[in-house]
Structures are given as structure tokens and as C-alpha cells.
């Protein structure tokens, strides 16, 4: 049934697209891509919509209407998970914007060993997330971890970074920022070096201070870079799973659960229909947050 809808919808869409780029390529040219798209993307999307309405054991599915969605929203830790997801997304993307900008300013200045330092900032992006998670989990161990042992050496009793429910989520967010800030920095570096030097010279001749040059020249002119960084890191934060799972598994208890880890736990427990429903909810949530945000950021760009 779902598949029929998909096929019905496709020709119309193709016709519209086709008229815009008519004559560029013969239609057989699109067949491989269309097949791949239909089999690997369209079909699973509609299949998941269907299975989210069933109680599913991977071998048999019983249709239960919207019960999974009702159940998913009744998950006692889901609300906490929603709040945590938003906190995580906002904290990580804000920190990446601010730190990325600061690092980019540093790394576009006439600093010694600039290319090498740029590479160093980017290195954490290349390392496996799970590896990073395991390493930091060991470092953040409340009694034997490197961080708390160092703090103890100077007489400070460090908190249980990952075991205290007040800090667990933020500790993971901190690691996420460390790992991801390199990408934001690179985007900002590209933005900053593309600003024509004349603007800075003109501002300097007009007697602008360093702060004024930053606020009135650099910041407005890297607006496209800021939009990219915010959207990329916010989407990344909302659907973040690997780092949280590697570090806390949503714990202690449910205190650092985000939507993605709540969904995974349902899957792990064998509630396949329920976890599929959770993914549909996550998809809708990300779309609802990102589409307006992206429109807002891009509109400001056009106005300038």
C-alpha cells in the first residue's frame, strides 16, 4: 500500500523536475540513480512508516495503529530524553560556533607554524567517535581517571564527570565539542580568508578598534559560515548517539538519555515497532526544528 503511494507520487515529481532541466540528459541517464534512490531510500522510508504502526518481531508484524506512538510518548524517560536532546544540540552547537570562531581567528593570524596548528585542530574530527568515547570514559573515571587524579594532585576533589546525573550530559557534550570543533574551525577559516583585506584596511583608517573590526567586519561577513556551522552541528547534536552510547549508555539510569538512545534501547529490548515509531518521531522533530532554522539563517544571508 505504502509502495503504491510512493510510485504514484514519483512520476509527478519527476515531470516537474524534468521540465526544469529538459534537454540536458536523456531520461535513461537517470535510471541507475532512480533505482538506487527508490530501493535504498524511498522503500525503507515507507516501510518504516508502515512498521511503526505494528508490533513487530522482525518475522511477523501485527497492525496496532498508532499505539506505538502513544506508547513512545508515554515512555517516562522520553520527556527527559527530549529535553536532553535539545540541551545537547544547543550546547554543542553554541560552543562550536564560539570556540570555532575563536580558533579560526587565531589560526588565520600570523602565528608560528600555522598550517601545522590548523591540522592539529582538525585531527580529533578524524578519530573514531567510539574510540574517543572510550578514551574519555577512562579519563573521566571518578576515582582512577586522569582528570580527577590531576585535580586531586592540586587538592581539588573532582566530580563524577559521567556518574553524577548533574554533569553526565554536559561531560559528553564537552567531549563532543572537543571532537567536532575542528570542523567548525575549518569552515570559519575558509570564511575569514575570503573576506577582502580592503574592508579591514578601510576600518582601520576610520579608526576602528579591534573589537569594532571584529563585530562590524568579520562577524557579518562570515555569516554564511556561521549558518553552515550552526545547522551542521545542531543536526549533529539532535541525532547524536554514538558518543553518548560509548560514554554513558544514557546513564546513570536514564539521566543522560537522548531521543536516539531511548530509541536504541527499545530496539535492543526487541520492541522493533516501537523503536521504528521513535525514529519517525525523531525524523519529524529534526525536520520541524531545522527547516525553520535553516530558512531563518538563509534569509538573513540574502538580506545582506
Amino acid at each position, binding site marked *: 500500500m505504502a509502495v503504491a503511494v510512493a510510485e504514484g507520487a514519483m512520476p509527478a515529481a519527476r515531470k516537474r523536475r524534468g521540465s526544469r532541466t529538459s534537454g540536458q540528459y536523456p531520461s535513461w541517464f537517470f535510471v541507475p540513480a532512480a533505482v538506487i534512490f527508490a530501493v535504498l531510500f524511498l522503500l525503507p522510508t515507507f516501510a518504516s512508516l508502515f512498521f511503526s504502526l505494528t*508490533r513487530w518481531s*522482525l518475522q511477523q508484524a501485527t497492525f496496532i495503529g498508532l499505539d506505538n506512538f502513544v506508547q513512545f510518548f508515554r515512555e*517516562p524517560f522520553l520527556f527527559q530524553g527530549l529535553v536532553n536532546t535539545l540541551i545537547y544540540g544547543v550546547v554543542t552547537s553554541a560552543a562550536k560556533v564560539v570556540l570555532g570562531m575563536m580558533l579560526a581567528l587565531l589560526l588565520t593570524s600570523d602565528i608560528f607554524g600555522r598550517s601545522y596548528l590548523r591540522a592539529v585542530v582538525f585531527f580529533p574530527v578524524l578519530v573514531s567517535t567510539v574510540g574517543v568515547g572510550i578514551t574519555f570514559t577512562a579519563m573521566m573515571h*571518578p*576515582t582512577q581517571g586522569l582528570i580527577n587524579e590531576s585535580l586531586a594532585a592540586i587538592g581539588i576533589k573532582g566530580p563524577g564527570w559521567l556518574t553524577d546525573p548533574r554533569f553526565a550530559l554536559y561531560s559528553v557534550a564537552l567531549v563532543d565539542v572537543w571532537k567536532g570543533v575542528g570542523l567548525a574551525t575549518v569552515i570559519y577559516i575558509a570564511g575569514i580568508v575570503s573576506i577582502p583585506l580592503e574592508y579591514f584596511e578601510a576600518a582601520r583608517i576610520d579608526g576602528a578598534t579591534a573589537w569594532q573590526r571584529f563585530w562590524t567586519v568579520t562577524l557579518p561577513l562570515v555569516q554564511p559560515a556561521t549558518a553552515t556551522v550552526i545547522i551542521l552541528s545542531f543536526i549533529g547534536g539532535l541525532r547524536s548517539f554514538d558518543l553518548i552510547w560509548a560514554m554513558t549508555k544514557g*546513564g546513570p539510569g536514564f539521566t543522560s538519555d537522548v531521543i536516539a538512545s531511548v530509541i536504541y534501547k527499545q530496539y*535492543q*529490548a*526487541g520492541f522493533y515497532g516501537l523503536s521504528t515509531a521513535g525514529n519517525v518521531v525523531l525524523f519529524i522533530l529534526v525536520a520541524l526544528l531545522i527547516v525553520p532554522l535553516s530558512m531563518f539563517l538563509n534569509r538573513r544571508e540574502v538580506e545582506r
Partner: protein
Amino acid sequence: MLKRKATRVALAILLSTVAGSALAQDKVKLTFLFDNGEATVKAAEALAAAFEAKNPNIDIETESRPGGGDGDNIVKTRLATGEMTDVFLYNSGSLFQAINPVQNLVDVTDAPFQANVIDSFKSVVTGTDGKVYGVPILTAMGGGILYNKKIYAELGLTVPKSWAEFMANNEKIKAAGKTAVIQTFGDTWTSQLFVLGDFYNVQAAVPTFAADYTAGTAKYASTPAAMKGFERQEEVFKAGYLNEDFAAATFADGVTKIATGEGAHYPMLTFAVGNIKELAPENINDVGFFAIPGDDAASNGLTTWMPAGLYIAKTTQHPEEAKAFLAFVASTEGCDVQTAAIGATGPYLIKDCTLPTDVPPVVSDMLPYFQEGGNSAPALEFLSPIKGPALEQITVEVGSGIRSAADGAALYDEDVKKQAQQLGLPGW
């Protein structure tokens, strides 16, 4: 030129004879999956090796998987996608029910080796169709409290029979500047013992609890006897008896701590004795065991766990060889191989299997509960098909003071309901 041709011909002949001899042997390869607990791995690999020695035409390829929730996930997914090994080890009882045995496993009800299996085990590997799907592997266990005998001797304590005595002991241990109770929430599954191991006491107070719970009429939150497990976990935390790193410590840490006297009590299943043997072998005689005490010293008894089962996946290409392996495991010879590999960890559920006389204290403390006239009752997961998957997170929260006992019990009731619906039980 001619010489090179000759070598090529010789090579071809050589290759064909090698291939021919390999075909002639015709070895059957069986695959075998088990969890990566140290004791399980040792016992399973010893069983496979001993079986191969007896059956030179069968080759067993072993593979280990994580335990806990990750392991459940792997087993369920591999069964559902037809990727399961020929034989595999997995829990009996309610977790066994959750892997859809009727659809996924080979029926071994009428296999001759079932005659060796003690009847009480058969009921926990029986599917909804009344057929038996496995044989026991490893030994039965008790769920209670491991205690450090050196600390007990040093402080002049006696094994508690009631909860009040247990808490009094804890107070004295704390006053002596030692850790009274070890918890290891770094491995979340270890947090469930206060609740699950209290079931003997629940059943003593409410004999119909298991049946009513399965029918959906009895709830943890509304049954005071069942609430006790959650309350006691909360009580132990609030009294400040736990080790400093309880939130991050792992099962292996806990085993080492109880053996070396870094803590006095560790709520755990007795299979941990196999891990003590691995991690702190010189301290194995310093650890004893008692059942989780209830309100009344007179009705003290042990909650017991059935061994895991050994099952054959329906997708196997070699059912006869797989059955031969099950027959080997379910024989006195199989028991002896396991005992030789990991020592005696508890009673086997195979007829005529014996334990050596010099068992570690954990085992000798546990055995009287199992014997005639001893007080023991199976854990709830062997009497009811429903076990909520989120219990370990809930007990971590209750045991770390994040959530109250009452709240935790109510949350668990919700979790149980979800599992019952997924299993398609009537009345939910």
C-alpha cells in the same frame, strides 16, 4: 622450456591431490555462540575441544558475544535474520521466551539425551507450544550476597538471617572504616540483585505473586512485599554503605574488591565464583555466600537461577551434529569437562553429575539451600515469561538515589507491561 612445463604439470598434480584429500575427509563445521563472561568462555571452549577430540569429523568454531542488553540484541537480531550459529548459549526462563523459540529453535523434546536432564530445567526451556528446546549448560546459581570472610572474622560478625541483622552488620563494618556494600553500576546488569534476589521473600509473603504478575493483576508498586527489594536498595544507598566508585565500577572490579577485602558485601549471582577464580585465585577461600535476608529470620531462603540453555537454531545445516553436541554437554562427561575448566560453581541439572568434595566456600555455602529440606525458590524470571528490559537502569537510579523506590517500582510496572504486550500475552 620443457623443464618449466614439467614443473607446471607436477604442481597441478600436487594441487589436485591436496584438494582431493581435503574433500575425502569431509569435516562438518559447527558454529557455537556464547557470551564473553570469562568463566563461560573457558567452559564453552573446553566443551568444544573435548567434543572435537571425541568426534574427529566435527569441527566446532567458537564465537563470543557481549552479555547483558547488547547480547540480547545480538541474539534476537541474528535469529530473526537467519544469521544465528548452529548452536548457541542463552538464558533460560523469561529471556528465552523473548527470543521466540517456537519459530527460531529446533525442537529437542524427544531427543534421547533429554533423559539425562533434570525435569525442573525442562520447564524453563519449554516454548508456548509445550515443546522443549534446550539442555542446561553450566550450573544452577543462587542470587544473594557474597561476603568477605576475613572482614567477618576480624569484626566478629555472624552471617545475617534477617534484614535487620544485615543492616546491623553493615553499620559495624562502616564504623570500622570499611566499605560495607559493593555496587558496580558501570555494568548496569549487576544492579538488579536486591530486587531479583529478593523473590524468595516475595513468594513467601505472597505465594500467588508469580501467577498474578503474569496475568497482569499483581504489580510491584502495589504489592508491599515486592516493593521491598526496591526499598532496600534505596536504604543501602541512603545509609552511605556503598564503595566510593560504585557508579563507575565494573563487575570485574566488584569481584576483585570482594575477594581482596576492599568491601564486605557484594550482591551477586554465585556464578561469580568462576570469575574470582580467574581474577583473584589466591583469595577464593576468603569469599562466602548467603541468601538475601528477609524480614523474618525464621523464613530465610535462597532465590535460585537456572543455568543457561544450549539451543539449536532452526537455520542450521547440520542438525544431527548439533544434537550430538547437545548430547555431549548433557552428559556426566560434559559436566566433568566444565568442572575441570572452571571449577565447581554450583549444582548441575544433569542426572548423576557430581561435584568434587573440595568446592570453594561460595559453593559450599550455597549447596545446603538446594538440598532436601533446604529453602530455595526459583527467581521470578523462571516462573513468568515477563521480565522488563529496563529494570537494570531503574535499579541503577534507585540504587544511586536518583529516583525513589516507589517511583522506580511504578516505572518498572510500566516496563513490564510493554514486554507483556510485545510477547502478545492475554490480558494486557
